[in-house]
């Protein structure tokens, strides 16, 4: 009898234990909120920007907005480090809109294109304070003629009767061929290639890649991005002054000086600075140098040619 009670107790205990384990497992398993949320290891966000004076920096619409944010926001993050201002990007939908923002004072400074700067300087007296250096440490850049890799186009002369995609009409790249190269190669009148302007340099590349246009002109920095995607550089322009950072003629010197001083402090020969600029737009990855209006005289001459043609 004692043995039977012992066995009965053991079996009852086993059943009881099994029931408890089953309930615990059920509760644990069906509580799908556990172990979520894995909200750990936050990277602390910089909250020191709050309360600072907001200073907007404009950028001409040379690239699509995401590309501009990707390449220019890190520059502003750098400027915000240790500054008493909070620099914010303000994009224009056209080159002209950015100039207008600058003139209206909506933006304290703007990254303009070479060509639009010369025109804005003439009209509104804006002044350039910095321009980017290239990989050789020189303040120049280039525009390039591109085609797809298998294209028979080998030079300007081959563009006769062809379709050419160009970026903004207010950019140097948008004017280099029409103002300088087509006349030089006698591609005028009926022989002049048909061309069309597009909002962004990347749009020009996509048109060429799709075959909608036989060739296109973009900044060299953009063309290099697509060299591994069936794009070939046919021709490069002469070196032109880099795209300047421009302020209004009566700009706040405090902002101007801070922009200039902080950006000129960069020395990409230093590993820390080199790592810093790695996330920047390629055009600015070699640092800046002071810019003067005289640096853009060559572009100014091109503009005069345009006006001569217009008359």
């Amino acid at each position, binding site marked *: 009898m004692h043995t039977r009670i012992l066995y009965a107790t053991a079996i009852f205990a086993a059943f009881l234990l099994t029931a408890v384990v089953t309930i615990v497992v059920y509760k644990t398993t069906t509580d*799908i909120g556990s172990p979520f949320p894995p909200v750990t290891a936050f990277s602390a966000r910089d909250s020191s920007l709050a309360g600072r004076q907001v200073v907007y920096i404009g950028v001409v619409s040379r690239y699509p907005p995401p590309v501009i944010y990707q390449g220019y926001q890190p520059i502003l993050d750098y400027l915000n480090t240790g500054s008493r201002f909070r620099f914010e990007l303000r994009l224009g939908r056209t080159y002209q809109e950015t100039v207008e923002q600058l003139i209206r004072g909506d933006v304290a400074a703007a990254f303009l294109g070479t060509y639009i700067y010369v025109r804005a300087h003439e009209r509104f007296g804006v002044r350039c304070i910095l321009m980017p250096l290239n990989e050789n440490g020189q303040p120049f850049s280039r525009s390039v003629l591109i085609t797809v890799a298998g294209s028979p186009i080998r030079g300007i002369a081959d563009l006769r009767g062809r379709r050419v995609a160009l970026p903004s009409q207010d950019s140097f790249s948008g004017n280099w061929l029409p103002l300088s190269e087509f006349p030089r190669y006698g591609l005028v009148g009926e022989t002049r290639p048909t061309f069309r302007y597009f909002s962004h340099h990347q749009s020009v590349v996509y048109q060429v890649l799709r075959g909608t246009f036989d060739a296109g002109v973009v900044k060299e920095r953009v063309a290099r991005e697509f060299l591994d995607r069936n794009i070939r550089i046919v021709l490069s322009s002469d070196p032109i002054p880099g795209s300047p950072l421009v302020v209004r003629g009566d700009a706040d010197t405090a902002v101007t000086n801070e922009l200039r001083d902080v950006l000129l402090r960069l020395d990409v020969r230093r590993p820390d600075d080199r790592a810093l600029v790695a996330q920047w737009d390629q055009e600015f990855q070699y640092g800046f140098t002071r810019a003067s209006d005289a640096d853009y005289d060559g572009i100014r001459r091109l503009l005069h040619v345009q006006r001569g043609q217009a008359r």
Partner: protein
Amino acid sequence: MSRFSTVRFSLKARLMFIIGSITALLMLLISVGILSQWRTMIVGNLRQNAEGVTRAIAISLTDAFLYGDEEDPPLEDLLERYIRNYASTITGLTHIAVIDNSGRILAHSDHAQYGRVVTDSLAVASGRTDRLITAILESPHHGWVIETVQPLRIAGKRWGVVRVGFSAESTRAEIRSLFILLVALTTLVTTVTLLVLYLLIGRLTDSLHELVLLMDRTGLEADDPVPVPRRNDEVGFLLQHFGLLRQRLSQSRRELLGVHAQIARAEKLASIGRLASGVAHEINNPLHGIKNCLYAIEREPDNQKQITTYLPLIREGMEYIETVVQKLLGFARQQPASMQDVDLQEVLSKVLRLLDYNIRRKHTTCTLTVEPDVPIIRGDPQLLSEVMMNLVLNAVDAVGNGGLITLRCCRAGENRVLIQVQDNGVGIPEEHLARIFDPFFTTKGPKEGTGLGLSVALGVVETHGGIIRVSSTPGHGSTFVVELPVGEERS
């Protein structure tokens, strides 16, 4: 008779309990392991899908911030359009909200939420990181929901976050179904295992039971082979070897009985030797008388009166000698043990008559008392005579001249009788008491005893189902008590 029901912790119950417990535990562990893995996988898939959709939504919403205009169209309108589109096309979406950096809701799938400032833990957590955050929680409105928070940002520029909720009810139902399935499978496997185990162990214990019954009904004396069931497993092996063991035991017992018979014969011969002197004296006296009569007749062959007187004496002497010799032959004759009715009065009297000379020679007084209620018992009279002969001879040897030997026979309880042989001799030292029944143990000289008498007596008494007890006080004498069963037919 062995009965398995009397086993306190049966093999069957123990095996069932131990193996059943181990099986159930293993199945439980396996099930929990599988459940855990599947749960992780199912929830992982849910999370992956939710995060993938949220990232895609975030790209579109970031573009809305990039391209949206404060006037044409207003950013909120653009966000509203996007959200309505997502809510109508994405299955399982419970809510979607665009929240600016200050926690204010810019757009929400539920219009009632517009303008509200979100301050819950997820909002706080998302405000501290630029990574996507995922949480699964139970909502009072939507049940189980997986909620993802993805910052709307490019590089260091952050416009806010998008919070997207997806119903996780189906996922939870899937896990619950899996749980039920595994519980059912575990129960089924455990039950089937226990059932199979029960049958197998039952078969095993039945075989053992069969073996036990076989052992119970098998006597060691039986020479006939007991039919052993033919089996090809370990139980069959055990049964087979039990048969062999039984054969070996039977053989040993036969050999032992043979040895016992030899010992008994040897002891009998020794007893006969010890009787010889008494017998010789018994014979010698009448022989002397016969011899003297014959001498007188030869000297006076014509003396008819003397012849007439002596011849009856000669006949009487011869008849006495014949009687003595017949008694001796009767004792020495080898007779197979046969159980028959035994009158202990007669046995004891006969023994005393045989030892009369030995008793008288030492001027020993020997008394015999047989209670009137002593029944006839079942036994071998010849063997019992030998036992009594040995005990009385030992008593005669133990007492000195003028010693006293008392034989008493009485009933001991309902079914037993008791024969007591008591003397007032030298007694047995205490250190010898435990060994006196060992074969060849003797304290007498080489020509006086074989050391087999008490050993044989013990064997005979045990063969009859009785016992021998002894008590002794050195210097005061010994008492041997033989207790015998009356026997079934007489009890």
